[in-house]
């Protein structure tokens, strides 16, 4: 083989390895004739630059923009350096967009510029639309007459409060804090979607404030949140309460009336509760009315009401069901205890007659009926039975009264 042929073969093989194999060792000039030494040096430099180019390209392909810098005079790396510059710039652009900066433009990068700039422009438009939407939402929440609070579902940190609630924080900070505390402890499983908060007013002693709350699980600016809409229903509650009170109470004495008495008895019967019905009658109210006038009659009734209140237990329900007729519903009470109490009331009335030096004696008659789980009587029937018992009592004590 000639020297030229040998050099050609060696160099060709070296070129093949440079192109297709990585980490090929440099070719030694001793492997070729002195005439080809310059060519070997050139190919070694080409080999070095090509390896550098591969390494640099791999770094970029893997997203490593801060890899080992190729040598300044390597022309093979020049386009890659431009690519790296552009990627660095795009990385900055992307971060800017992520931070809400939509004013930057990617210039002169062909279709990528168009796509990126279109995306940025659309994001800007969407954000503007979202801001408009949020402004509308804020406007609505500020004008719906309800308090609106949005809390982070997990941390219960406040994410939004509408103007009404912000104003409350200034005018009634304690109330606002109490409401915030209540909603921060909200649990849908136990409270449901609509629930109620009741708070003692710090402004008016003894007054209870009521807030109706509707709660919704929502997505608030990418966070899981709970929106609470609070409505002050204190006046409504108070009005309902006054209506209910008027419907169920006796105007003269303030005791419960017949309607309430029957309703409670039916409820007790339905729930198979143990209770006593004590039918109480004012003795000789008609005589007092006719002889001394209705003012005295009313006084007599009021005295009776006061005495009954003093005598019965806290949980007993006293009702005035007619002119001179009262019924006391006594849950979980023995007949003996009930009669003892009624006798106490009767004696109290008699004592008051003497203390007040009244021209008419005050007294009462009563009849007690026990109801339990096995009761088969209706409320009306129980009332009739207790009335009969009362009548028997009255008959038995008539002579005593006359004396």
């Amino acid at each position, binding site marked *: 083989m000639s020297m030229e042929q040998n050099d050609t073969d060696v160099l060709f093989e070296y070129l093949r390895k440079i192109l297709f194999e990585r980490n090929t060792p440099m070719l030694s000039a001793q492997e070729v004739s002195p005439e080809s030494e310059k060519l070997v040096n050139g190919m070694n430099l080409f080999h070095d630059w090509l390896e550098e180019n591969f390494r640099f390209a791999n770094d970029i392909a893997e997203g490593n923009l801060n890899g080992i810098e190729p*040598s*300044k*005079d*390597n*022309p093979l790396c*020049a*386009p890659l*350096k*431009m690519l790296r*510059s*552009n990627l*660095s*710039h795009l*990385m*900055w*652009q992307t971060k*800017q967009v992520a931070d809400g*900066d939509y*004013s*930057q*433009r990617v*210039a*002169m990068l062909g279709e990528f510029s168009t796509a990126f700039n279109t995306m940025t422009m659309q994001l800007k438009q969407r954000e503007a639309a979202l801001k408009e939407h949020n402004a509308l939402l804020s406007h609505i929440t500020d004008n719906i007459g309800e308090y609106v609070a949005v809390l982070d579902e997990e941390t219960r940190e406040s994410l939004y409060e509408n103007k009404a609630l912000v104003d409350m924080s200034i005018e009634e900070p304690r109330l606002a804090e109490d409401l915030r505390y209540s909603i921060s402890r909200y649990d849908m499983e136990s409270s449901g979607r609509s629930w109620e908060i009741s708070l003692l007013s710090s402004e008016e002693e003894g007054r209870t404030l009521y807030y109706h709350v509707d709660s919704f699980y929502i997505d608030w600016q990418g966070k899981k949140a709970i929106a609470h809409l609070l409505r002050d229903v204190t006046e409504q509650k108070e009005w309902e309460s006054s209506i209910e009170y008027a419907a169920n109470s006796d105007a003269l004495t303030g005791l419960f009336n017949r309607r309430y008495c029957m309703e409670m008895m039916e409820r007790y019967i339905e729930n198979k509760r143990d209770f006593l019905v004590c039918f109480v009658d004012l003795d000789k109210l008609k005589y007092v009315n006719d002889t001394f006038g209705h003012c005295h009659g009313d006084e007599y009734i009021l005295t009776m009401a006061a005495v009954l209140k003093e005598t019965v237990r806290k949980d007993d329900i006293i009702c005035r069901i007619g002119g001179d007729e009262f019924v006391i519903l006594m849950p979980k009470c023995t007949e003996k205890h009930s009669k003892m109490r009624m006798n106490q009331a009767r004696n109290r009335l008699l004592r008051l007659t003497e203390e007040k030096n009244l021209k008419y004696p005050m007294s009462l008659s009563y009849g007690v009926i026990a109801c339990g789980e096995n009761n088969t009587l209706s409320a009306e029937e129980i009332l009739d039975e207790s009335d009969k018992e009362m009548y028997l009592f009255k008959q038995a004590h008539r002579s005593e009264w006359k004396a």
Partner: protein
Amino acid sequence: MANIFGNTDNDNSAVLWDYLFNVDEGRKNLGGEMPVIVYRMLEYSMRDVLTSMYGKEKMIEIIRSAGEKTGREFYSRCLDGSLPLNDFLAQVQQKLIDLKIGILRFEKFDEETGHAVLTVSEDLDCSGFPSIGETVCNYDEGFLAGILKAYTKKEYIVVEIDCWGTGERVCRFDAKVVLDK
């Protein structure tokens, strides 16, 4: 008798900006544009002469100072300094494209420290330049520093770290706020 109207050919009070406009009227046929090569002939002949007269270091200082003067003037005449930072950067980028100075791209801008890394592609001064082992865009260094100083009211130093002159294909500049001048 003195010319009370001023603004004559011999008026020494003319400032940089006065020299730059009214080109269309003066060049009715040739217009306001010319090949980049003409700009470069002026720049590099100037660099050569300045180097031979004052040395390389002084030449760079002079060229950079000229760039900074232009940057400040450019800021006050062509840019809206009332814009917030991001909008301002976008504006500078667009202006440099409009005037065909180069394609400005930011790789970093730290709002807290003011440190920025930016590149200029297809730069007027050096794009296509042979690799001579050194950066040559000293005028750009001054120009960018002038804009940044004027906008931020901070003392900036801008250094070119990559250039066509060093074998790169874009010019990369490192801009830092000088804390203790």
